[in-house]
């Protein structure tokens, strides 16, 4: 069934359609939650809370084509609230342990340089490159104009380039 059709059904209270929608998005939501909260247990809990919030407010989705970005926004708001609550830097041990050994060093490297960006810029960079959202989608998630997203992206990439050059990490420079 088409995503939009599922959203329409779920809006009318069709629980099976709602379950199907969450099934379609669970993997991506889980990975985004992992990248924020850094451990699997918290990411699973995030999915539960986001399912609950979405279930309660799905009627408010006006345009079914924005469902995915709307859902992502609910997750990101939740994760940011959780991070504020925890008020400490999270260690990535659990997250790293979930990855294959060949990926661990590249993740850590990126995490190190990204962590130096301001939070808004980092969010945009992560959504674009780590979570593979289009610029238009990021604008919907963050509820801001596409131009703003582009500005942040350019700023972020420039800073990253500077950092990597400093470290001598650009292989073919």
């Amino acid at each position, binding site marked *: 069934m088409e995503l939009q059709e599922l959203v329409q059904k779920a809006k009318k209270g069709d629980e099976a359609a709602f379950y199907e929608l969450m099934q379609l998005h669970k993997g991506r939501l889980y990975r985004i939650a992992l990248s924020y909260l850094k451990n699997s247990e918290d990411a*699973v809990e995030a999915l539960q809370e986001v399912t609950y919030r979405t279930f309660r407010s799905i009627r408010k989705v006006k345009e079914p084509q924005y469902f995915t970005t709307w859902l992502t926004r609910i997750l990101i708001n939740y994760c940011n609230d959780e991070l504020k609550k925890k008020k400490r830097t999270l260690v990535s041990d659990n997250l790293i342990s979930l990855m294959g050994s060949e990926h661990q060093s590249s993740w850590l490297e990126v995490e190190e340089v990204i962590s130096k960006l301001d939070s808004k810029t980092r969010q945009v960079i992560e959504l674009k490159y780590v979570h593979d959202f289009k610029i238009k989608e990021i604008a919907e998630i963050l509820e801001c104009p596409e131009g703003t997203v582009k500005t942040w992206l350019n700023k972020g990439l420039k800073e990253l380039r500077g950092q990597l050059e400093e470290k001598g990490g650009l292989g073919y420079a």
Partner: protein
Amino acid sequence: MLNAEEKKLTKAQAALENIEVPEFQLDAAIAAGISKGKKKQKKNLLFIRTLASAAILIFAFTAMLRTSETFASYVTSIPGMEKIVELVRFDKGLTSAIENDFAQKIGVSDEHDGIKITLDSVIVDEQMMVLFYQMESSGNRKDISIKDIQLTDDQGKSLGFSSSVWLGPVDFQQKNVYQATYTFDGRLPPENMKMNIWLAEGRDGEVITKLEDKWVLPFSVDRDSFMGKKEFIDVNETVTIEGQKITIEKVSIYPTQIGVIVHFDEDNTKQIFRFEDLRLVDETGEEWAAISNGTIASHFNENRHEVYLQSNYFKKPKELYLRFNSLRALGKDEVEIMIDPGKMEVLKAPSDGRLLKVSREENQLLLTFQRDSKDGHGNISIDQAVDPSGKEIGDGSASFRWNDESPLEVLIPYFGEGAAPGPITLKLNDYPATIKGEAKIRLK
């Protein structure tokens, strides 16, 4: 072509993609999220629209409908009135009105689409009218909700009385009796009226399509049977509880209810919100408590309220006392909550620390309050939020949600409502803080 830094980032994406998803745990989380959503949706979501007008009516809904299953034999059996007696059994005044043959039998029906609505009877006096009606379905219609109920004159013109009616799902299996209450506010109802009911097809109270037909129930009331059935007592006695002066001005006794007009001294240091146990007691010790269903009070202003008690009009006690021991009140310097939505910071709140936090949920501000009792929404109520320029924010709606373990969460529309930036003010109009004492005023 990707830049080097973009390439690095893409590797991080591959690393994340490489993580195996715990299917079973995620499915369990989705199921738990849905079940939590269903539970809250059904049980404990109270949607309140704050009235902007000066004379505010305070409502409570403990029993807008009752099912026949819970019928108990201890109530007086009156042929043909069993279900209505059962519906009003928590209101001694209405029960006694029925026992004293004060209800007027109507028995008018209207049927469309296989759904039949019958206006069974009314209890009416100079103060208010209670309509009792039943709904039946001959077909297998499901998911029907009452969408709107309007009381008009025989020409179909709305009478504009304050009302408290049940709008929500209808259970045809249970053959419920429903109650609609109209308060006349000093006017008198015409002899000929029409009850107009609109239904909708929906699910869990969520309306999907309004049915085209309108169910119309014309009926007449016999004015002579209730005109003049009332009694006024001028009291004008002041009592002091924890330093707060409370004057009982006047008591009016009608068959359907008893109104008590109270005045809280303007110089009181505390704002009094509600009586917790205002009651009438006769010479035998029998008590009549506050009305707990429908309009329970009207507030002429902050300091002058009329509170409604169950009636003992038909009982005619020899001696009668008005008593109370506990009132909900808060220091006048504490009744305003101030929040900076930009920083999600509480700038001012009652000193008891009950307001735990402020956060955002979608486009709403979420205020979390600690709750004492295991049942109910904890007696917290808030006026419409006001922005720094003094403008009211949103449409006056607020949602309250809670469950057995959780604190009370109050959701107020804020983001996207065009409020001026800066701190907003929320005025409390009920709060779980009390003053206690002893008041016993002789009325008869």
